[in-house]
């Protein structure tokens, strides 16, 4: 199969700014052009947009505003894993030969309509994501005899790590006491255990092996892709203490890349809520069931930055359509050894985990340098 590389990227700072979605898309795309030498508009065959925003025809709008006339252009929406799903689509266009270079720009506003899946009526009045997160949290704590303090550490670690990420919304370290004293949203979830909806954009450039060296001396290869959707309804989930779609997506991604969890040096995990991080680590077999929290504790005490180096969704903020792209950019920087204070030593293989709607759908990417 032809190889596909990541050859450029650009981001905006995640914030609560009241910017138009078109402006956010334009800004992150401009940042990509600024940092990708020799990239010319004429090189770009396809423009893909990742967002849940209601504005229409955004790929054509962004193309016009940046002087691109692509062969292929459209939007991709899949709630919170729109970003990596757009990367999977771009990969497929390149492998099929329909495109050699694809620009993907993802953006969201703080008031995104993607935060609540209105269709899923079987949750009654309890449609806000804090309710599925509370059910996950209660179930995971009971199953593995964990405490609120255990899960609070996820947030403490990720806030600490985000202080080294200039694009993160949170630039403040917090303590376990801060988390436990923060507003109690439910019996099983506090405010500081949640990622924040915000305004932000992230752009990434993918290219075929033939042309990738035109844009960078350090292409990062996408060697594994796994994607699985088990349902759209949260209540169809079989158990609330693991993530079946994540399990299957990770299995496919590792199989495709011929790698295994122990080969991974650095990873971005979709910590929409604190419980999601250890649960995803279990589900992807980085730890045996219930032991993901031990990896979180180890990462925190050793300051190794291996799990969510940019601060995860909890520390960085969660502009839905940009999140999967920002996660992939972080792993790319890590594998290019240019992640500055967040750099994991000798990182050569990384993983991105991005999911949506109470883990009913997951995407996992394996990247190598």
């Amino acid at each position, binding site marked *: 199969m032809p190889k596909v590389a990541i050859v450029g990227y650009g981001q905006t700072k995640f914030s609560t700014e009241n910017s138009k979605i078109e402006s956010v898309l334009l800004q992150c795309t401009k940042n990509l052009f600024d940092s990708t030498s020799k990239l010319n508009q004429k090189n770009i065959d396809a423009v893909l947009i990742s967002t849940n925003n209601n504005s229409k025809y955004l790929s054509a709008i962004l193309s016009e505003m940046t002087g691109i006339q692509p062969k292929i252009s459209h939007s991709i929406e899949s709630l919170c894993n729109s970003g990596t799903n757009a990367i999977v689509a771009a990969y497929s266009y390149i492998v099929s030969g329909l495109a050699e270079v694809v620009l993907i720009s993802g953006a969201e506003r703080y008031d995104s309509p993607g935060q609540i899946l209105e269709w899923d*009526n079987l*949750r009654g009045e309890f449609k806000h994501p804090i309710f599925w997160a*509370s059910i996950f949290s209660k179930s995971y704590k009971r199953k593995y005899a964990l405490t609120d303090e255990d899960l609070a550490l996820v947030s403490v670690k990720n806030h600490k790590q985000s202080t080294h990420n200039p694009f993160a919304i949170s630039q403040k370290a917090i303590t376990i006491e801060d988390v436990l004293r923060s507003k109690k949203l439910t*019996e099983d979830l506090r405010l500081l255990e949640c990622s924040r909806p915000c305004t932000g954009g992230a752009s990434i450039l993918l290219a075929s092996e033939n042309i990738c060296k035109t844009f960078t001396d350090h292409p990062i290869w996408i060697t594994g892709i796994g994607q699985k959707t088990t349902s759209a*309804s*949260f*209540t169809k989930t079989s158990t609330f203490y693991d993530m079946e779609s994540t399990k299957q997506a990770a299995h496919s991604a590792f199989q495709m890349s011929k790698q295994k969890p122990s080969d991974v040096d650095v990873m971005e995990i979709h910590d929409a809520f604190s419980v999601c991080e250890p649960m995803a680590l279990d589900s992807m077999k980085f730890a045996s069931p219930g032991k993901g929290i031990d990896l979180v504790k180890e990462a925190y005490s050793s300051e190794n930055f291996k799990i969510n180096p940019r601060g995860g969704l909890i520390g960085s903020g969660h502009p839905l359509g940009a999140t999967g792209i920002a996660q992939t950019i972080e792993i790319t920087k890590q594998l290019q050894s240019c992640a500055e204070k967040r750099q994991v030593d000798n990182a050569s293989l990384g993983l991105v985990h991005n999911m949506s709607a109470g883990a009913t759908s997951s995407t996992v990417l394996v990247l190598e340098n």
Partner: protein
Amino acid sequence: MSFESELKKGNFLISECARCKKIVWPPSEWCDQCLDKNSWRKCTGKGKIIEFSKKENTYFCVAEIENSVKILGELISDGPKIGKSVIIIDCGIHDNNYFFKMKMLD
């Protein structure tokens, strides 16, 4: 008849495919296996608690009704436990949202 038109009247229905002998959930007009038309049947509303949590003074729980379909709704009883029997005592549509209220049976 549809799930929503009956829910508005406070009736909780389950969709079933006669051909596949299968309960189809979320409620749907069509079978997700053979894509034939489903039929609707009234159910007892009895089920059990799968998981629960609490917001302020309100318990909410995932309940499995008739050992087959799951919903997330309000639990008006105190001291919920996993596996305890519940029954739907009220359901309907309010402000475009479904609602399900349950209580524990014992």
